[in-house]
């Protein structure tokens, strides 16, 4: 049982988020791992910050994205970069692998969760190391799950059907990207905090490739929107 005095004595920085990022979808394909996320940071229900690049390249072959409180995301990026930098002082050329980052983040999240001061994030770490694809989800509680596909936020509810019907772990990069774009179309239609400009990044043997943000095609010029029943728009 947690007594109130225990909680108030501890620091509690993020128990409810302020500026939040949207869903993240990550899929494994035959040559690596591809991640897609939208470029919006919401201030509650307001679409405050558009064109935010939310994909962090943590090392040569690892990328990190998360949904949730954006300031926590920025802090974690700094923490992960710190590990890589500290590796330099040993002069042995050994750098953390994607799995090292994933586990470190899980330990960090769990520690903060135990103090009721969580990193308010669903984290996704993707990488390619020694010929092996790596993809893991670390959630707000510090749960660590390695998987072939990962979805956070509303994507977990809307997109799993699309992923299971149109994706498999040995598909091509183009097929995986297509699935991600379809998912974000659906999310834009159904999730109130989603945005139609998304950014895709993938890691393969050659390293990390982060693409420019792009707008997913959605159709809004239905007749039903233009002429509502028994009504004409002012312009007509």
């Amino acid at each position, binding site marked *: 049982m947690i007594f109130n005095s225990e909680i108030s004595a501890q620091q509690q920085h993020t128990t409810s988020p302020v500026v939040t990022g949207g869903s993240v979808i990550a899929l494994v394909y035959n040559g690596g791992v591809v991640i897609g996320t939208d470029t919006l940071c919401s201030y509650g229900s307001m679409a405050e910050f558009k064109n935010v690049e939310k994909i962090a390249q943590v090392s040569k072959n690892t990328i990190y994205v998360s949904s949730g409180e954006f300031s926590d995301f920025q802090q974690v990026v700094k923490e992960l970069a710190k590990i890589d930098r500290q590796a330099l002082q040993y002069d*042995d050329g050994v750098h953390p692998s994607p799995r090292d980052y994933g586990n470190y983040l899980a330990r960090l999240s769990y520690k903060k969760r135990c103090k009721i001061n969580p990193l308010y994030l669903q984290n996704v770490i993707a990488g390619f190391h020694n010929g092996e694809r790596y993809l893991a989800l670390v959630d707000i509680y510090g749960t660590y799950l390695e998987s072939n596909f990962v979805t956070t936020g509303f994507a977990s509810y809307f997109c799993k059907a699309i992923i299971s019907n149109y994706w498999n772990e040995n598909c091509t990069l183009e097929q995986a990207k297509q699935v991600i774009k379809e998912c974000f179309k659906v999310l834009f239609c159904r999730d109130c905090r989603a945005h139609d400009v998304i950014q895709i990044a993938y890691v393969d043997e050659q390293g990390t490739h982060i693409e420019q943000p792009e707008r997913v095609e959605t159709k809004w010029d239905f007749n039903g929107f233009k002429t509502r029943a028994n009504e004409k728009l002012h312009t007509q």
Partner: protein
Amino acid sequence: MLKHLYDTDCVTWSPQGKLFQVEYAMEAVKQGSICLGLKSNENVVLCSLKRQPSELAGYQEKQFKIDDHMAIAIAGLTADARVLCKYMRTECLEYKYTYESHHPVGRLVFKVAEKSQHKTQSGAKRPYGVGLLVAGIDPNGVHLFETCPSGNYYEYKCQAIGSRSQAARTYFESWFHLFEKSTLEQLILHGLSAIKKAIMEDEELNEKNVEVGILGKNLKFTHLNAQELKDYIAKLETFSPNSQIQQE
């Protein structure tokens, strides 16, 4: 070693630029019984000669597993070795807990060296009186390091420390060019041959007083058991490095 002036503590230099307390600590390593290590492209082997304080006593173990991928052989003060061993094991465990992977070998040796150096720069402390041979495997390859009380550490292809280790080193100098491509069995036989050079005339190698530890890219650290040791010591009779050259 003779007594010197300027040797009262670690914080006094001699006019020749030596820290005598540190040098005396390295003498303690030379008093320990011999242990040696040698590596190939795939494996590392540690061999050591165990001492028996009296006929009633057991033999003092000289090799300790630090983690699945790393082990040490010690020469010098066993009590100091235990402290360093515990430190290394704790570091490996913490690394594994945080990153779920093995502690890079060079990095841990660096940490041990830093700890050792710290003891050489204080008026109230003394250096560790033990030298370690650290054998380990990590993504950078196969490693064999030597640490010493001064806080220096070196990487080796093969090395022997402890009493009468010069004889073993002489053996290594003649044959180390064969080690890189040796099989595990050849490596063990080389190690035992080198130890044989370093024992006293009235002593003999047997499965009780010799300790052999092996480590490989796909092989977690293990000690050879008594039967395996007996077999290898028997094979020593017919083993010669020359035959290895003829094979290649």
